């Protein structure tokens, strides 16, 4: 079935192009999806940028979440494309998996903005700041208990 058979649905997909390529950072994998014409293009990489080549991709529609809509494998660049049946569903789940690593992304072709906000990844600066905060928390705990120990030794 062509997506252009219904002008409204076709327009929804076309509008989605404007919001294309929002990254998902999580679980050691980075999955990006975008609409290209009638199809959905999936790009998967480890979070250090190495492409997830020959990773297994399983696509589920929201209307039949237990039965895969389509299965396949990413190419050497970690890319995969499929043609969604938008009469069946506008919401899709795509799982990319390789050796137990990967991620499952959810997107709705009807509600772009909310989903895209959820899918935004962290910037490098945010990651560095968050790491520094957590490490400081650990070190602070260590220093607190170390000073407590010194205090106990001084009293005894």
């Amino acid at each position, binding site marked *: 079935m062509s997506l252009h058979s219904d002008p409204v649905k076709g327009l929804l997909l076309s509008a989605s192009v404007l919001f294309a390529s929002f990254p998902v950072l999580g679980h*050691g994998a980075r999955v990006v999806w975008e609409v290209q014409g009638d199809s959905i293009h999936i790009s998967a990489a480890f979070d250090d940028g190495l492409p997830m080549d*020959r990773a297994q991709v399983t696509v589920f529609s929201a209307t039949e979440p237990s039965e895969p809509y389509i299965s396949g494998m990413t190419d050497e660049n970690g890319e995969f494309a499929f043609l969604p049946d938008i009469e069946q569903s506008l919401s899709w789940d795509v799982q990319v998996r*390789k*050796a137990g690593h990967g991620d499952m992304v959810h997107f709705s072709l009807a509600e772009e903005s909310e989903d895209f906000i959820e899918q935004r990844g962290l910037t490098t600066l945010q990651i560095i700041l968050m790491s520094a905060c957590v490490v400081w928390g650990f070190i602070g*705990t260590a220093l607190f208990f170390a000073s407590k120990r010194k205090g106990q030794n001084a009293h005894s």
Partner: protein
Amino acid sequence: MHIPDGMLPAEVCIAGYAGTAFLAWLSVKKAKSTTEDSARVVSRASVMAAAFFVVSWVHIPIPPVSVHPVLAGLMGILLGWISFPAILVGLFFQAAMFGHGGFTTLGVNALTMGGAALLAWGAFRLLKGNEKGVKSLIPGFVAGLTGVVLAVVFTGSILILTIPEHIDAGVEFSSILAMAAAHLPLALAEGVFTALVARFLLKVRPDVLA
């Protein structure tokens, strides 16, 4: 090495949490019974948890995957029983802050890495003696190597036993084997690093080792 959310069935995740709860309880109980200086234990565990948290960002690309240091062996020989809760805390923050691993799989990940740390510590204690020269490196090397190898074997076994029906089991099995093989250079490197640290500490501060 970290199994993310969505990769394991619910019953495995629940079993992982049950096992982790038991091992964490046992570790704290054993640690309390073997040391009177709890402030010292907590301060060391905090520093090592920080190290464990940070090294997950050191990516080493070994195609077809990228690996990162685990430090299970080093955690084991420095912290002993308390290495398990320290790794559990580190894994929690990795999942919470960056999505490394997952919350549903936190129990399983703690069992694979924390369990490996405890067993590596056990191997270190068995081999540790009064050897001199090159032989004094063996206990630390075995601990560092064992920490990575066991973590990979545990993780790989769980993944292989829970491959879902909707994917090609043969392809996934091959990918898991490739992932395991990619960790062998890391296991050797961690073995050497842990051996050097252990020998140094045995010479200057043997009381630091668990």
